[in-house]
């Protein structure tokens, strides 16, 4: 499903968080949204997901306003947002609740997604018993179990250590090769974006404006191959010069909140 963001701006009271963002996430692609922390990435994701009403502008899903579609978007959160009093299977089932499936269908869907995300043996475990990587797999499974047309990922790997991050990136690529969906992937990590995305949209620091959209010419399956390294390194250097000054300035900003 294509997601079209048209002239979206957002204010929190006197604070301008987003300024005139227009971009399109194409059907079936992964668009990475990269920008310094505080530039409004989560805000934009909230607007696309229908949690926030933009101050101006609109979001269209396959050309229609979101209200016309049945809950086609699901979220993956940076902090996992799992219910500690529910088991892994129950946490995953939570997102299915509004869908009103019969119990056996629900169990089937949950069982299938547990296998897909490598959580098979953890169905009855509680979140506190799991490592960070396993918790985020649950977060991913909970989002995927509803078979979303659009997956919104808000820095899903930022709370994880480097090795776990690497493992999850491999796994997400494997899952995306199997499940058709359109993905909007928010991150502040350039390496993640270069590994997972088809295109990268660079935002400026607050108020977030669209600086540039870069197409990564290398197919996802070939990103970790040595042949692709020079092209990716050149892209990395180009994007980093774009982001560097913004990040440095955002870093020096005094927070008045």
């Amino acid at each position, binding site marked *: 499903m294509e997601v079209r963001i048209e002239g979206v701006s957002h204010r929190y009271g006197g604070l301008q968080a987003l300024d005139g963002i227009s971009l399109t996430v194409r059907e079936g692609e992964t668009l990475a949204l990269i920008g310094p922390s505080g530039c409004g990435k989560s805000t934009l994701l909230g607007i696309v*997901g229908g*949690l926030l009403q933009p101050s101006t502008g609109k979001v269209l899903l396959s050309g229609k306003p979101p209200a016309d579609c049945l*809950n086609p978007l*699901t*979220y993956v*959160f940076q*902090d996992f*947002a799992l*219910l*500690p*009093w*529910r088991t892994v299977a129950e946490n995953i089932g*939570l*997102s299915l*609740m*509004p869908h009103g499936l019969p119990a056996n269908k629900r169990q089937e869907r949950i069982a299938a997604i547990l296998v897909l995300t490598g959580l098979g043996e953890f169905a009855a475990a*509680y979140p*506190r018993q799991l490592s960070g990587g396993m918790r985020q797999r649950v977060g991913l499974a*909970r989002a995927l179990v*509803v078979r979303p047309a659009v997956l919104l990922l808000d820095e899903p790997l930022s709370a994880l250590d480097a090795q776990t991050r690497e493992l999850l990136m491999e796994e997400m690529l494997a899952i995306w090769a199997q499940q058709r969906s359109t993905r909007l992937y928010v991150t502040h990590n350039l390496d993640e974006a270069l590994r997972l995305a088809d295109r990268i949209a660079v935002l400026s620091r607050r108020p977030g404006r669209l600086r540039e959209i870069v197409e990564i010419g290398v197919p996802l399956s070939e990103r970790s191959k040595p042949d692709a390294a020079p092209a990716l390194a050149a892209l990395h250097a180009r994007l980093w010069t774009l982001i560097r000054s913004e990040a440095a300035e955002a870093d020096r900003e005094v927070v008045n909140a």
Partner: protein
Amino acid sequence: MPERSETSRPVPFRGGGFHYVPRKAVPWIGFVLVLTLWQALCSFGVISPLFLPSPEAIGVALWRLSESGAIFSHLGWSLQRILAGWAIGTAAGLLVGLTMGIFSAARSLGLPFVSALFPIPKIALLPLLILWFGIGEPSKIAVIALGVFFPTVISAYTACDSVPRNLIRMGQSFGLSGQTIVSEILLPGAMPGILSGFRISASIALILVVAAEMIGAQHGIGAFILSAGNLMQTDQLLAGVVMLSILGLLISFILGRVETWVLRWR
């Protein structure tokens, strides 16, 4: 080479200390020591038994009272009042407190009343409650219920506030209904706060039952302690106090069990 031998002295480990490490025997030794000293002071006539009876005398009094069953009958009366008052106060307090936790309008409406009425020592209302309900059970139960109500309201809505907002946002993002968010996320998330509120309200109920029984009752531990004092039977009086302490420990033990069961996901 004298300098070298100076540098090679053994270095003690510097990492330990300043942690609380429970010592198993120490509490018992302390307890026995205090009892022995107390007993000795009484036995050698340093302290008059009327002023402070010996532990032995209190033990004997407790034994006699439980043999005759008198203390259990008083305990039964007090327990009944606590249970009824606490249950009513808690039920009403949870209803009001959770409503205030869920709906902003209810919070805005209720907050001034709660803030104004919470600080009143509820025992001060007993004379009024006696005028309303008579001297019997209802006025005592009502004063306990009132005393339990306000702290329960406060702990219930602050418990709602302490539920992580990201979990609620998660529920909303998956399109869960308000009802589902309350039952699946808000209430379980508020449970730890509500349960620790129970500890506070139970101790308030214990204080109030004794106070109410001292003001106007024939039965109950409070009435028993008061009449023992009037008759200068300090051994009986302290036997009653010991029963209260046991009752308090029992209540907190039960609440602890409930807590570990309800919050077994932690």
